[in-house]
Protein backbone atom coordinates (compact mmCIF):
# COMPACT_ATOMS: atom_id res chain seq x y z
CA UNK A 1 0.00 0.00 0.00
CA UNK A 2 1.88 3.09 -1.24
CA UNK A 3 0.15 5.16 1.46
CA UNK A 4 1.92 3.13 4.13
CA UNK A 5 5.42 2.66 2.68
CA UNK A 6 6.48 6.28 2.87
CA UNK A 7 8.87 8.31 4.99
CA UNK A 8 6.13 9.93 7.10
CA UNK A 9 5.07 6.47 8.29
CA UNK A 10 8.71 5.54 8.88
CA UNK A 11 9.41 8.70 10.91
CA UNK A 12 6.27 8.11 12.99
CA UNK A 13 7.40 4.57 13.80
CA UNK A 14 10.89 5.78 14.72
CA UNK A 15 9.23 8.16 17.17
CA UNK A 16 6.88 5.53 18.61
CA UNK A 17 9.34 2.62 18.95
CA UNK A 18 10.97 3.91 22.15
CA UNK A 19 7.62 3.65 23.98
CA UNK A 20 7.80 -0.13 23.82
CA UNK A 21 11.42 -0.80 24.82
CA UNK A 22 11.93 -3.08 27.84
CA UNK A 23 14.54 -2.10 30.41
CA UNK A 24 18.01 -3.44 29.57
CA UNK A 25 18.89 -4.73 33.03
CA UNK A 26 15.78 -6.24 34.56
CA UNK A 27 17.74 -9.37 35.51
CA UNK A 28 19.79 -7.28 37.92
CA UNK A 29 17.25 -4.71 39.07
CA UNK A 30 13.87 -6.47 39.09
CA UNK A 31 14.19 -10.26 38.86
CA UNK A 32 15.58 -12.37 41.71
CA UNK A 33 14.57 -15.82 40.56
CA UNK A 34 15.07 -15.55 36.80
CA UNK A 35 18.49 -15.45 35.09
CA UNK A 36 19.46 -14.93 31.42
CA UNK A 37 19.83 -18.60 30.42
CA UNK A 38 16.19 -19.17 31.48
CA UNK A 39 15.05 -16.47 29.06
CA UNK A 40 16.87 -18.23 26.24
CA UNK A 41 15.21 -21.58 27.11
CA UNK A 42 11.69 -20.12 27.27
CA UNK A 43 12.31 -18.07 24.10
CA UNK A 44 13.46 -21.15 22.19
CA UNK A 45 10.34 -22.99 23.35
CA UNK A 46 8.12 -20.09 22.23
CA UNK A 47 9.82 -19.93 18.85
CA UNK A 48 9.20 -23.67 18.35
CA UNK A 49 5.51 -23.23 19.23
CA UNK A 50 5.11 -20.28 16.86
CA UNK A 51 6.87 -22.14 14.05
CA UNK A 52 4.90 -25.35 14.58
CA UNK A 53 1.65 -23.34 14.65
CA UNK A 54 2.72 -21.45 11.50
CA UNK A 55 2.06 -18.12 13.20
CA UNK A 56 2.54 -14.84 11.37
CA UNK A 57 6.21 -13.79 11.39
CA UNK A 58 5.51 -10.95 13.83
CA UNK A 59 3.91 -13.05 16.56
CA UNK A 60 7.14 -14.39 18.11
CA UNK A 61 9.12 -11.10 18.31
CA UNK A 62 5.95 -9.39 19.60
CA UNK A 63 5.48 -12.06 22.29
CA UNK A 64 9.12 -11.62 23.37
CA UNK A 65 8.57 -7.86 23.60
CA UNK A 66 5.63 -8.46 25.94
CA UNK A 67 7.66 -10.92 28.03
CA UNK A 68 10.59 -8.51 28.43
CA UNK A 69 8.32 -5.56 29.23
CA UNK A 70 6.48 -7.62 31.85
CA UNK A 71 9.75 -8.81 33.43
CA UNK A 72 10.93 -5.19 33.46
CA UNK A 73 8.18 -4.26 35.93
CA UNK A 74 7.03 -7.44 37.74
CA UNK A 75 9.26 -9.75 39.83
CA UNK A 76 8.33 -13.27 38.69
CA UNK A 77 9.04 -16.78 40.03
CA UNK A 78 10.92 -19.02 37.58
CA UNK A 79 8.17 -21.66 37.93
CA UNK A 80 5.84 -19.11 36.28
CA UNK A 81 8.12 -18.06 33.45
CA UNK A 82 6.62 -20.59 31.04
CA UNK A 83 3.09 -19.43 31.99
CA UNK A 84 4.20 -15.90 31.15
CA UNK A 85 5.65 -17.08 27.83
CA UNK A 86 2.42 -18.87 26.93
CA UNK A 87 0.40 -15.78 27.90
CA UNK A 88 2.55 -13.51 25.74
CA UNK A 89 2.04 -15.81 22.73
CA UNK A 90 -1.70 -15.85 23.50
CA UNK A 91 -1.81 -12.04 23.40
CA UNK A 92 0.55 -11.61 20.42
CA UNK A 93 -1.51 -14.03 18.35
CA UNK A 94 -4.68 -12.10 19.20
CA UNK A 95 -3.00 -8.95 17.94
CA UNK A 96 -1.67 -10.42 14.71
CA UNK A 97 -3.60 -13.53 13.75
CA UNK A 98 -7.04 -13.73 12.20
CA UNK A 99 -7.45 -17.02 14.14
CA UNK A 100 -5.51 -16.67 17.41
CA UNK A 101 -3.87 -19.55 19.33
CA UNK A 102 -6.31 -21.08 21.86
CA UNK A 103 -5.65 -21.31 25.59
CA UNK A 104 -6.11 -25.06 25.48
CA UNK A 105 -3.52 -25.51 22.72
CA UNK A 106 -0.98 -23.38 24.59
CA UNK A 107 -1.51 -25.40 27.80
CA UNK A 108 -0.87 -28.59 25.89
CA UNK A 109 2.43 -27.10 24.66
CA UNK A 110 3.42 -26.69 28.35
CA UNK A 111 2.73 -30.39 28.86
CA UNK A 112 -0.33 -29.22 30.82
CA UNK A 113 1.85 -27.77 33.55
CA UNK A 114 -0.51 -24.75 33.44
CA UNK A 115 -4.31 -24.64 33.30
CA UNK A 116 -6.51 -22.54 30.94
CA UNK A 117 -7.97 -20.64 33.92
CA UNK A 118 -4.45 -19.63 35.02
CA UNK A 119 -3.65 -18.51 31.48
CA UNK A 120 -6.78 -16.32 31.36
CA UNK A 121 -5.95 -14.69 34.69
CA UNK A 122 -2.33 -14.21 33.64
CA UNK A 123 -3.64 -12.64 30.43
CA UNK A 124 -5.50 -10.01 32.46
CA UNK A 125 -2.49 -9.40 34.74
CA UNK A 126 -0.18 -9.03 31.74
CA UNK A 127 -2.59 -6.67 29.96
CA UNK A 128 -2.69 -4.49 33.06
CA UNK A 129 1.07 -4.55 33.58
CA UNK A 130 1.61 -3.56 29.92
CA UNK A 131 -1.15 -0.95 30.32
CA UNK A 132 -3.09 -2.64 27.48
CA UNK A 133 -0.53 -1.02 25.18
CA UNK A 134 0.09 -4.05 22.95
CA UNK A 135 0.59 -2.43 19.56
CA UNK A 136 4.36 -2.52 19.99
CA UNK A 137 6.51 -1.50 17.05
CA UNK A 138 8.48 -4.58 15.94
CA UNK A 139 11.51 -4.96 13.64
CA UNK A 140 9.15 -6.42 11.01
CA UNK A 141 7.45 -3.04 10.70
CA UNK A 142 10.74 -1.57 9.42
CA UNK A 143 11.92 -4.34 7.10
CA UNK A 144 9.42 -3.45 4.36
CA UNK A 145 10.54 0.18 4.43
CA UNK A 146 14.23 -0.73 4.08
CA UNK A 147 13.59 -3.22 1.28
CA UNK A 148 11.54 -0.62 -0.60
CA UNK A 149 14.60 1.64 -0.61
CA UNK A 150 17.07 -0.93 -2.00
CA UNK A 151 17.65 -1.25 -5.77
CA UNK A 152 16.97 -5.00 -5.97
CA UNK A 153 14.64 -7.26 -7.95
CA UNK A 154 11.34 -8.41 -6.51
CA UNK A 155 12.40 -12.06 -6.16
CA UNK A 156 15.67 -11.05 -4.48
CA UNK A 157 13.56 -8.90 -2.14
CA UNK A 158 11.57 -12.00 -1.19
CA UNK A 159 14.72 -13.97 -0.29
CA UNK A 160 16.15 -10.99 1.54
CA UNK A 161 12.91 -10.54 3.54
CA UNK A 162 12.95 -14.21 4.57
CA UNK A 163 16.57 -14.05 5.76
CA UNK A 164 16.05 -10.76 7.58
CA UNK A 165 12.95 -12.13 9.33
CA UNK A 166 14.94 -15.18 10.45
CA UNK A 167 17.63 -12.92 11.91
CA UNK A 168 14.97 -10.85 13.70
CA UNK A 169 13.58 -14.01 15.33
CA UNK A 170 17.12 -15.08 16.29
CA UNK A 171 17.78 -11.69 17.93
CA UNK A 172 14.57 -12.03 19.92
CA UNK A 173 15.96 -15.18 21.58
CA UNK A 174 19.15 -13.45 22.73
CA UNK A 175 19.43 -11.24 25.84
CA UNK A 176 21.97 -8.99 24.12
CA UNK A 177 19.19 -7.50 21.99
CA UNK A 178 16.55 -6.98 24.72
CA UNK A 179 16.80 -3.19 24.70
CA UNK A 180 17.93 -2.70 21.08
CA UNK A 181 15.48 -0.45 19.22
CA UNK A 182 13.47 -2.50 16.66
CA UNK A 183 14.70 -0.21 13.87
CA UNK A 184 18.31 -1.07 14.77
CA UNK A 185 17.58 -4.83 14.86
CA UNK A 186 15.77 -4.58 11.52
CA UNK A 187 18.56 -2.57 9.86
CA UNK A 188 21.23 -4.91 11.24
CA UNK A 189 19.25 -7.93 10.03
CA UNK A 190 18.78 -6.53 6.52
CA UNK A 191 22.47 -5.58 6.29
CA UNK A 192 23.53 -9.03 7.55
CA UNK A 193 21.18 -10.68 5.05
CA UNK A 194 22.55 -8.65 2.12
CA UNK A 195 26.06 -9.53 3.30
CA UNK A 196 25.25 -13.19 3.79
CA UNK A 197 23.63 -13.49 0.36
CA UNK A 198 26.64 -11.78 -1.25
CA UNK A 199 24.17 -9.57 -3.08
CA UNK A 200 25.83 -7.38 -5.62
CA UNK A 201 24.15 -4.73 -7.69
CA UNK A 202 25.11 -2.31 -10.39
CA UNK A 203 25.44 0.63 -8.07
CA UNK A 204 27.55 0.30 -4.97
CA UNK A 205 24.81 0.90 -2.36
CA UNK A 206 24.78 -2.80 -1.51
CA UNK A 207 28.45 -2.84 -0.59
CA UNK A 208 28.80 -3.42 3.13
CA UNK A 209 30.17 0.00 4.03
CA UNK A 210 27.66 1.95 1.95
CA UNK A 211 24.67 -0.11 2.99
CA UNK A 212 25.42 0.31 6.69
CA UNK A 213 25.96 4.05 6.21
CA UNK A 214 22.74 4.31 4.20
CA UNK A 215 20.59 2.37 6.70
CA UNK A 216 22.10 4.19 9.69
CA UNK A 217 21.01 7.45 8.06
CA UNK A 218 17.51 6.09 7.48
CA UNK A 219 17.12 5.10 11.17
CA UNK A 220 19.07 8.15 12.35
CA UNK A 221 21.66 6.10 14.24
CA UNK A 222 25.44 6.13 14.45
CA UNK A 223 26.94 3.93 11.63
CA UNK A 224 29.40 2.29 14.05
CA UNK A 225 26.51 1.38 16.34
CA UNK A 226 24.66 -0.26 13.47
CA UNK A 227 27.81 -2.05 12.32
CA UNK A 228 28.32 -3.41 15.85
CA UNK A 229 24.72 -4.62 15.90
CA UNK A 230 25.18 -6.31 12.52
CA UNK A 231 28.34 -8.04 13.76
CA UNK A 232 26.50 -9.25 16.86
CA UNK A 233 23.79 -10.69 14.63
CA UNK A 234 26.36 -12.44 12.43
CA UNK A 235 28.17 -13.96 15.41
CA UNK A 236 24.84 -15.01 16.94
CA UNK A 237 24.01 -16.68 13.62
CA UNK A 238 27.33 -18.51 13.56
CA UNK A 239 26.99 -19.77 17.13
CA UNK A 240 23.40 -20.92 16.61
CA UNK A 241 24.38 -22.72 13.37
CA UNK A 242 27.27 -24.37 15.22
CA UNK A 243 24.88 -25.46 18.00
CA UNK A 244 22.46 -26.82 15.42
CA UNK A 245 25.22 -28.84 13.76
CA UNK A 246 26.36 -30.22 17.14
CA UNK A 247 22.80 -31.23 17.96
Amino acid at each position, binding site marked *: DANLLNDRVLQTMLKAEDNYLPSANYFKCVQKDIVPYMRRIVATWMLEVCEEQKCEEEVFPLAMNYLDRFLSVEPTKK*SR*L*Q*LLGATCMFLASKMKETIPLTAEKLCIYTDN*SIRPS*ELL*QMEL*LTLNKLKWDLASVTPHDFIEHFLSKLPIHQETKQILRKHAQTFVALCATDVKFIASPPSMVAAGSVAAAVQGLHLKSTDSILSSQNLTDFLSQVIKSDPDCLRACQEQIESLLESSLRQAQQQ
Partner: protein
Amino acid sequence: LFGMPNHEELQRELSERLREIEEAKSDKWNFDFAAHRPLPPGRYKWEP
Protein backbone atom coordinates in the same frame (compact mmCIF):
# COMPACT_ATOMS: atom_id res chain seq x y z
CA LEU B 1 10.57 -25.71 31.98
CA PHE B 2 11.57 -24.48 35.45
CA GLY B 3 9.59 -26.61 37.86
CA MET B 4 5.84 -27.09 38.31
CA PRO B 5 3.91 -24.02 39.53
CA ASN B 6 1.91 -24.52 42.75
CA HIS B 7 -1.61 -24.16 41.29
CA GLU B 8 -3.42 -23.18 44.49
CA GLU B 9 -0.79 -20.59 45.38
CA LEU B 10 -0.73 -19.32 41.77
CA GLN B 11 -4.53 -19.00 41.57
CA ARG B 12 -4.62 -17.13 44.90
CA GLU B 13 -1.79 -14.76 44.03
CA LEU B 14 -3.14 -13.96 40.56
CA SER B 15 -6.59 -13.16 42.01
CA GLU B 16 -4.95 -11.01 44.69
CA ARG B 17 -2.85 -9.05 42.18
CA LEU B 18 -5.86 -8.45 39.91
CA ARG B 19 -7.99 -7.31 42.82
CA GLU B 20 -5.33 -4.83 43.94
CA ILE B 21 -5.07 -3.43 40.40
CA GLU B 22 -8.85 -2.96 40.07
CA GLU B 23 -9.08 -1.34 43.50
CA ALA B 24 -6.42 1.19 42.54
CA LYS B 25 -8.42 2.09 39.42
CA SER B 26 -11.66 2.48 41.40
CA ASP B 27 -9.88 4.83 43.77
CA LYS B 28 -8.45 6.89 40.91
CA TRP B 29 -11.83 7.34 39.18
CA ASN B 30 -14.01 7.15 42.37
CA PHE B 31 -16.08 4.65 40.41
CA ASP B 32 -16.79 1.00 41.30
CA PHE B 33 -16.31 -0.63 37.87
CA ALA B 34 -17.28 -4.12 39.07
CA ALA B 35 -20.63 -2.92 40.47
CA HIS B 36 -20.82 -0.18 37.79
CA ARG B 37 -21.68 2.66 40.15
CA PRO B 38 -20.03 5.93 41.31
CA LEU B 39 -18.10 6.03 44.60
CA PRO B 40 -18.58 9.59 45.91
CA PRO B 41 -16.85 11.67 47.04
CA GLY B 42 -13.87 11.93 44.74
CA ARG B 43 -12.20 13.75 41.88
CA TYR B 44 -15.09 13.10 39.48
CA LYS B 45 -18.69 14.19 39.88
CA TRP B 46 -20.57 11.34 38.17
CA GLU B 47 -24.11 11.54 36.80
CA PRO B 48 -26.19 8.88 34.93
